């Protein structure tokens, strides 16, 4: 940024350190505003917040980032006034604090891209000066602020103390790209390693049993175990708490609620849940869309809520929890719920399959072309669309589901893989093409006996665990174009959320942990493929997108 600054190369470090601080300050100001609005004029946390701002000011100054420096300084001044003067603890001042902290967050976040806008910073400083120039009556006989006992303050404290505790254990800072490079190399090692058992088998077939072969077998097995340990150790280095993503939303929801003239409280839970940074980087946008959607369409106005006997303030809850090898993220609102009739009407207009109960109907909102908006003007320019949000989640190998109850609200449940990098897969063969099927989406593999799969109305149907499921031909679904299709000996039962579908394949090749590589944009956005991997023989295999396949229109 500032090429004249000796520490210009440290911009990423500056962002990494200062952004969470600025976000925490913003959150604390939001809580203050809430209290002050409710008439609770306490400001115990402000002493600690002022200290944090002081740190931000100092760090920004070191980096030669004057706009951030002056904004932090101005906020410090406001805090000083708030500590000294009870009369200053009013919503207008809180709004000023929130605005400044928000500006600071934006400036710091963008520090690597473009120089911060000095005009906005100066403007804010001028407004602070004007606000503070008005002396509030009775400011002199204010008792000193009591010792902090405030929650926001405590949280900030905890955040600050966690880091050095780790550091005491010998923490270092590593550019994430280096971890990516490490993973890349690990992936190559895994591919090479996965070729070993085959070589071993061939060697054993040629030489028969001899002590060296037994030795080799042991080494191959031991190596595989070690690679597993290496993998999990490597994965651990890539995990970050989801709070880093959640932190963005407090202010966004507040601003949006204000613009929509609604009263909304955002509650977050499970921020300590760990996820691969590569996933964290890509869930912000879909989550933002779900929250935006909830604020604009899900939540009623305060008056309407009162009429329905609900508290005027709506609650939006964003929570995360770790499952065994997945992470579940839920977005819950207590608004009006989805309009089932409207969705069905739209779906019919789009010629979509509207069978199934209300839950199935609600699932249609992820279809492109459907809108949950009350009026068209509302949607314009907002977010990326539910279909795109769902697509983004699917692209991560995750799933998204919705449940809704009239006037009770909507629950979006996202299930995300812990990591994007390595996928436990079943390798299948269809018309001599090999595909990797994520095991997380495989319910079962079934051997095809005569009369297992029936053709009804040109669709394949099989009984599976007591219910009829659609079974698609792998060759047709994947477009292998083979004229004489090989005998389909198995079908793989894929599932995504509540939906299931069988996929007929020729052969089950085996289980393998594959290193996921993304597809180049030139390949378009296939629905049935989520990525690619390199198999032990060096050939590329596509990774099937179970969610996409289950959602595909039925083919014979």
């Amino acid at each position, binding site marked *: 940024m500032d090429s004249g600054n000796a520490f210009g190369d440290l911009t990423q470090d500056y962002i990494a350190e200062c952004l969470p601080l600025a976000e925490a300050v913003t959150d604390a100001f939001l809580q203050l505003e809430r209290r002050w609005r409710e008439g609770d004029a306490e400001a115990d946390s402000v002493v600690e917040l002022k200290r944090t701002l002081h740190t931000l000011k100092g760090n920004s100054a070191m980096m030669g980032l004057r706009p951030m420096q002056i904004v932090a300084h101005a906020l410090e001044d406001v805090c000083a006034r708030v500590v000294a003067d009870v009369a200053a603890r009013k919503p207008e001042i809180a709004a000023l604090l929130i605005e400044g902290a928000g500006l600071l967050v934006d400036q710091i976040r963008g520090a690597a891209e473009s120089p911060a806008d000095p005009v906005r910073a100066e403007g804010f400083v001028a407004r602070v000066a004007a606000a503070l120039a008005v002396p509030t009556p009775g400011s002199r006989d204010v008792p000193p602020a009591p010792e902090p006992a405030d929650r926001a303050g405590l949280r900030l404290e905890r955040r600050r103390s966690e880091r050095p505790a780790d550091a005491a254990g010998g923490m270092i800072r590593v550019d994430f790209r280096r971890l990516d490079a490490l993973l890349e190399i690990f992936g190559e090692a895994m591919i090479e390693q996965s070729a070993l058992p085959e070589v071993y088998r061939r060697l054993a077939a040629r030489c028969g049993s001899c002590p060296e072969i037994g030795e080799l077998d042991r080494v191959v097995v031991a190596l595989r175990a070690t690679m597993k340990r290496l993998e999990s150790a490597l994965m651990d280095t890539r995990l970050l708490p989801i709070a880093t993503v959640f932190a963005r939303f407090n202010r966004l929801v507040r601003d949006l609620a204000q613009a929509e003239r609604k009263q909304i409280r955002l509650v977050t839970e499970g921020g300590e849940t760990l996820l691969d940074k590569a996933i964290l980087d890509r869930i912000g946008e879909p989550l933002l869309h779900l929250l935006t959607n909830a604020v604009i369409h899900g939540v009623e106005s305060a008056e309407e809520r009162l009429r329905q006997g609900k508290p005027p303030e709506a609650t939006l809850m964003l929570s995360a929890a770790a499952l065994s090898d997945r992470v579940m993220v839920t977005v819950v609102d207590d608004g009006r719920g989805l309009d089932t009739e409207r969705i069905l009407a739209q779906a019919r207009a789009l010629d979509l399959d509207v069978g199934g109960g209300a839950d199935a109907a609600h699932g249609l909102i992820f279809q492109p072309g459907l809108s949950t908006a009350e009026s068209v003007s509302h949607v314009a320019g907002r977010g990326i669309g539910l279909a795109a949000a769902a697509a983004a989640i699917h692209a991560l190998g995750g799933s998204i589901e919705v449940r809704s109850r009239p006037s009770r609200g909507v629950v979006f449940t996202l299930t995300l893989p812990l990591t994007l990098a390595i996928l436990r897969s079943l390798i299948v063969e269809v018309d001599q093409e090999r595909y990797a099927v994520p095991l997380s989406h495989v319910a079962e593999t079934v051997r095809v006996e005569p009369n297992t799969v029936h053709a009804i109305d040109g669709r394949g149907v099989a009984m599976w665990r007591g219910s009829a499921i659609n079974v698609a031909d792998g060759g047709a679904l994947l477009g292998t174009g083979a004229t004489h299709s090989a005998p389909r000996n198995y079908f793989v039962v894929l599932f995504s959320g509540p939906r299931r579908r069988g996929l007929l394949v020729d052969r089950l090749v085996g289980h393998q942990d594959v290193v996921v590589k993304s597809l*180049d944009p030139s390949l378009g956005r296939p629905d049935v493929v989520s990525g690619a991997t390199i198999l032990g023989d060096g050939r590329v295999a596509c990774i099937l997108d179970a969610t996409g396949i289950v959602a595909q229109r039925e083919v014979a």
Partner: protein
Amino acid sequence: MTTPARAARPSGANLFDFADQIAAQAQAAQSLAQATEPAVAQLQLIAFRLDAEEFGLPLATVREVIRVGDITRVPQAPEHIRGVTNLRGRILSVVEIRTRLGLNAAVPGPRSRIIVVEVQHRVVGLLVDSVSQVLKIGVDRVIPAPDEVRSEASDHISGVAHLDQRLIILLDLERMLFAPNRAVPSPS
């Protein structure tokens, strides 16, 4: 300036001969160019064949030329994408430029090659029938594509270079790779 040997990095021992070959050709082309017209700005091209036609790409966009290995078809990929291949652990998309230029797709033969190019920070492979040489031509030899060429896949052609008796069609890679896939009118 990019040297030919660096631009066309061979990926394995079996390609060293190719590297030597193009390096020698580049040198020859260079000395020839210097001897005749030192004043005119030079264009470095890699020339390749599709059927009987000769095409050219700016050498600066070429990262390497590789032999054709296993190409995996990708379901639902656009028509002009032949598939993906393993380029030293990376997944490389392989563009069937024959169909992009209105020719029929062909089965790769022993002389077929994949030219790995980098355009707009993206790396893709172009499947060609054969790679002929690296050459330098003066920019004054390049003329806009004549009408008979335009009629076929004019969108993807930036010009035509005349070199002795040869006619080399220069491709506009950016448009060919990133322009929306417009149906190419088939010669009837």
